[in-house]
Each structure stands twice: as C-alpha cells, then as structure tokens.
C-alpha cells in the first residue's frame, strides 16, 4: 500500500472517528468521571460502593434478561435454520417478515401488548366470551403487570436481533459439508451437534449479545408491561438521572450504569471463550 492510498483511507475513516469520539468515547468518559466523583467533583468510591444495596435489582434484571435470551434462542434457531434452507427468493421474503415489526415504533409495539394482555384485554375477552358460550365460568388470566409480561415484551421486541445473525451464519455453511457428514454415516442428531451447531456458534453469540444487552438495561418495557411493579436496573438509572424520585444524582446513576457495563463486558468476555474460532470464521460481533 503506498502513502497516498493510506492517506485516503485515513481521510475516509475520519467521519466515523469523529463520530466515535463525540458520541461514544466522550459519553463513556463522562460516565467514568461521574461514577468516581461526588457532587462537588472530588474523587470518591462511595457511588460504586452504594450499589451493593441494588444487588437484588441487578439479579432480577439479569434473571429476566437471561430467560428472555434463552427463549429467543430456542425460538430463533429453528426458524433461522429453516429460512436458511429455503429458496433464495423465499429467504428474502422471510427475512423481510422477520424485520417487518421493527418498522413500527418500539413504544407503539409495546403499548399494543399492553392492550392485548390486560385483564379486559384482547386475549382475556376472547377467552371469556368463548368459554361462557359453553357455560364455563372464567376469571381470566392475570398476565399484564407480571414478570412474565416483561419477559414476553423483551422476547417480542428483540427476537429479530437473534434470528438475523444466526440466519446469516447458517446461510454461509456449505450444504456439501452436511452431505459429507451424512455420507460418512452421521445421523440427523449428529449432523446437528457435530457440524451445524459448532459452525453457527459465532452467530449464536452475537445474537445472545444483541438480545441480552438491550434486555438487561431496558426500562420502558418494565414500566409499560410490568406496570411499575418490578424495578429493573434501567428504571433505577433513569430515576437517578431524571430525578423522578425527587433526587437527581448523576453520580450514583453513572456508577450504576458503569457496573452494568462491566458486568456485561465480563459475561461477553467469558462467552467469547466458547467461540474459539470467531476470528477465523467471522460473523461474530467481537
């Protein structure tokens, strides 16, 4: 590569570098700064230490996000697989269908679930009128304002982020590899565990990342579908920054986000160990 093209390359990456600096590096630096200072700007560890009292909230957030991620994975893998085995024309349509809900505003989609799950909502009303037709007394299911509703909201909103990376990886797997495995006497189960699954690990990992991270830090889903009955860590961070509880405290809010960020980074780091050949096969987020 000669000097000119290097300069050109640098010039072309400049916009992104500036973008990164303003909207990624500076905010993270600010989070770090606030997390380790008090209201007067002098160094303190008390913000980080005060987070211990929110441990149960961290656990609930991680638990719900974890369940949502697992459900997403179970739903997404078979779907991604069957899409990847379709004709190219059909694949396009299916991917479009997966993306379709994302064209609508996130909030509106979540509000829609609210009216579906309510005690007087779509599901309960239909079930009630159907069952009373046959003379059964039906009280209706309590669905809205439960942790289950929050998980449902997470799964619904983030499922496409699980399907797409797995699908991308699966389409790259050469069909002849599967044929070869079958030729060599592998049954369906063995083909899946020994050939397909190992090769799709990068997609699974980036899918898990893309679902788990937004799910663990969400606050609007818990507010709308959880009815404010379950606090997730995102809710507490929001409160500290907006002062909804009557106390604006950027420092504790930043410390909470920092700890969440570190927790996510650590879990991503551990998970990437399962993906030993991510560097060679590509498709992973890291």
């Amino acid at each position: 590569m000669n000097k000119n093209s290097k300069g050109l390359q640098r010039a072309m990456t400049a916009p992104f570098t500036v973008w990164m600096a303003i909207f990624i590096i500076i905010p993270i630096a600010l989070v770090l700064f606030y997390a380790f200072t008090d209201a007067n700007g002098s160094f303190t560890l008390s913000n980080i230490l005060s987070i211990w009292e929110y441990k149960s909230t961290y656990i609930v957030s991680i638990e719900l996000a974890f369940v949502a991620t697992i459900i997403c994975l179970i739903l997404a893998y078979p779907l991604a697989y069957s899409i990847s085995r379709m004709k190219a024309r059909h694949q396009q349509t299916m991917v479009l269908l997966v993306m379709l809900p994302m064209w609508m505003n996130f909030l509106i989609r979540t509000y829609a679930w609210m009216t579906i799950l309510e005690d007087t909502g779509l599901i309960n009303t239909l079930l009630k009128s159907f069952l009373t037709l046959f003379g059964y007394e039906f009280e209706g299911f309590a669905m809205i304002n439960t942790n289950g509703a929050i998980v449902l909201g997470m799964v619904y909103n983030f499922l496409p982020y699980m399907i797409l990376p797995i699908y991308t990886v699966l389409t790259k797997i050469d069909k002849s590899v599967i044929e070869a495995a079958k030729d060599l006497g592998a049954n369906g189960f063995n083909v899946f565990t020994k050939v397909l699954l190992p090769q799709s690990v990068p997609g699974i990992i980036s899918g898990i990342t893309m679902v788990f991270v937004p799910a663990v830090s969400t606050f609007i889903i818990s507010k709308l579908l959880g009815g404010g009955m379950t606090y997730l860590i995102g809710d507490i961070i929001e409160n500290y920054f907006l002062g909804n509880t009557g106390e604006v405290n950027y420092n504790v809010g930043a410390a909470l986000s920092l700890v969440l960020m570190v927790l996510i980074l650590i879990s991503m780091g551990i998970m990437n160990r399962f993906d030993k050949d991510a560097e060679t096969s590509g498709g992973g987020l890291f």
Partner: protein
Amino acid sequence: MKRFMSLIISVCILLVSFSVAAFAEDQVVLNVYNWGEYIEQSTIDMFEEKYPDIDVNYTTFDSNEAMYSKIVSGAASYDIVIPSEYMVSKLIQEDMLAEIDYSNIPNYKYIGDAYRNLASDPENKYSVPYFWGTVVVIYNSQFVDEEDVKDQSLDLLWNEKYAGKILMFDNPRDSFGISLTRLGYSMNSGNEKEWQEAAKALSEQKPIVQAYVMDAIFDKMESGEAWIAPYYAGDAFVIQESNPDIKFYIAKEGTNLFVDSMCILKTTEHKKEAELFINFMCEPEIAAMNAETVGYATPNTEAKKLLDPTITENAIVYPDEDYLKNNTEVFINLPQKTQMLQSTLWTDLKIISAEEGSESASLDWIDIFCIAVVAISVISAVYFFIRNSRRRKLWNQ
C-alpha cells in the same frame, strides 16, 4: 462538570439549530415548557397570529422532577416553565427564576385573590397562576360497591376486596402525600418516623396494587381495566366524559391542593416576549378555552364566568374556599434530608417484589450468591487474560 457537559450538548444542539436559525433570523423563538395535555393547542396558534414575529416552541414534561432535572442539566434552554407550587419555591430558592414585571401583564388583575401571594411565592414576584386543582379518588361505580365509598375515605385504596384493580401514582410525592394523609400526618412532614410509617403502609398496599402509573391512568380507568385510582380532579373530569360510570370524591382525610404557575427562567433572553405570552394566557377568553380543554380549575375569575356553569358549580372541581382552607394542604419544597429519605423509601418500595409485600431480612443467600458471581467472573476474567497474553507471547516467539 455539569457546565462542561451542558457545553458539549449545547454545541451539538447549536450545530443542528444553525440551519433552523438561518431561516428565522429576526423571529424570536419562545421556548415554553409545560405539563403534557395541559393546553388548548389552538391558543398557541392564536398567540403566534397576534404576534407574528414570535414563534412558540412548545414542549412538555410529565413531572415536576423531570422538568427540574432538564433545566438544571442545561441540556435545553427554556423561557417559560409551568411547574407546581413546591417546585416554584424550589426554583426561587435556587435563584433560577426571573422577577416578572407585572406592569407588562395587565391581565394579572383577573387572577383571583386566593391565588395571589401563595406560600410558594409570598411576595408575588415570580409566578402567575395557570391552573389549580386537587387530588381526588376516582372509582368505577359499576364495579365498586356503594357501601365501600360511603365514607369517602382514602381507605378505599387499601381495600383488599379490590385487589389487582387499584392504581397508584408512579411518583413519590403524590403517593407519599396520600399515605401520610391517610395516617393523619402532614404531607410535608419532616418527621422520619412518619415517613417510615407511610412507606410501610405503601408496601402493605403494593400486593393489591395493579400498577403504578401516571398518564396511563386515562386508558386503564376508561376501559374498566382498573376500578380505583387517585388522580388530579381535572383529569378525573375528562375520564368521566368518556365513561359515565366513573365517579370521584375528595377524601375526607384531606387532599393535596396544587397551583401550577407560569414562571420565567432567569436564563431567558426574551423576557418581554415571555411576559407577552403570560399576559396572553391570562386573557379571559384564552384562559376559558384552556380550562374547557384540560378540565382543571382556572384561577382567572373572568374566565370562570365564561365557562359552562355545570363545570364551575361542580363542588369537586371548584371546591369552595372554606372547604379548601380546612381540608387541603399545599406541598412545600421538602428539605434536602427529607427529599433523600423520600427517594430511598420510594426506591425500596419499588424494589420489593409484590408477592413478598415487604423485604424480608433473610436475604443472606443473595449476598453470598452475589459475592460468588462477582468473584467467579473476576477470577475467570483474570485467568483468561493471563492465558491469552501467555499465548500471544508464545506466538510471538
């Protein structure tokens, strides 16, 4: 540091607004920051028509606290804000409001005597009342037995018969206000024990609460999803219009009286125009239009005469002055210590799970679990880091 951040943000905003500003160089832009669903939109158009060289940039907030954090962060500059009285006194204390030149607001003469010299602004220098109202208990008469509402008490919100059908304010000031009043204490109590008791009552209530909401109350009460909720009287009136089964009362234990006032922020560069706006909003016809839309009580005596008498004679929307004096309490700005206590108690209330009702002391296993998780992740991170760097060394050799 806050300044530094606001600098960065304002630079970003500036860059964006340059293009806008280029078109409207001699136009004055007046930034008005008000509660959501709290104005008749056409009155703004009328103002802009009357003063063609002023553009109103109207934005909304959904709680006093949200408004406060937005203006102190400096992320956006506003000229006029319309907070409630306790927030007005907080803003005055922190020297954030500009003194209003009342000679520029001739329509101030229409403001009733009862709404002048409020405790929040005793010398009447900084605020012009916009609307006032009380907090009422709303219920759906189709589902709630007449017997249970007979004594017009706040206990209805704690009635286990209606478990899962009760809504509560998703903001600590109003929720604690109700709980404190129910226990016979002042909403502005400075006594920690009373706050603890109120918090305990709220945590006992949590298992029968359907949800903590603010504006979502409209939907849930209108559709019959929820049957009982405390909310602002003006909004109760609006809900009643779309569901005639809705009824409401002022609790016998007492209630909160709020007055939302128009104020000018000290940082404004368009004080004259801001005063024009405030004056315009005090115009009887305009104030009456607003009152009709939002359903709250207007402090404007002339505007009140223009309204439909069925509204102004409604003793719940417009309670008489004796009643207000004896049964209502105005929020004052809580001292810092009480505010912190309120914040902690509220967060604790929201963290406990609804099934438990109260946080049990036997959470020791959670401590152990947390320590284990943190330890394992730190150890494995260190382990992988060392192994990686070793591997790299091997490769390099």
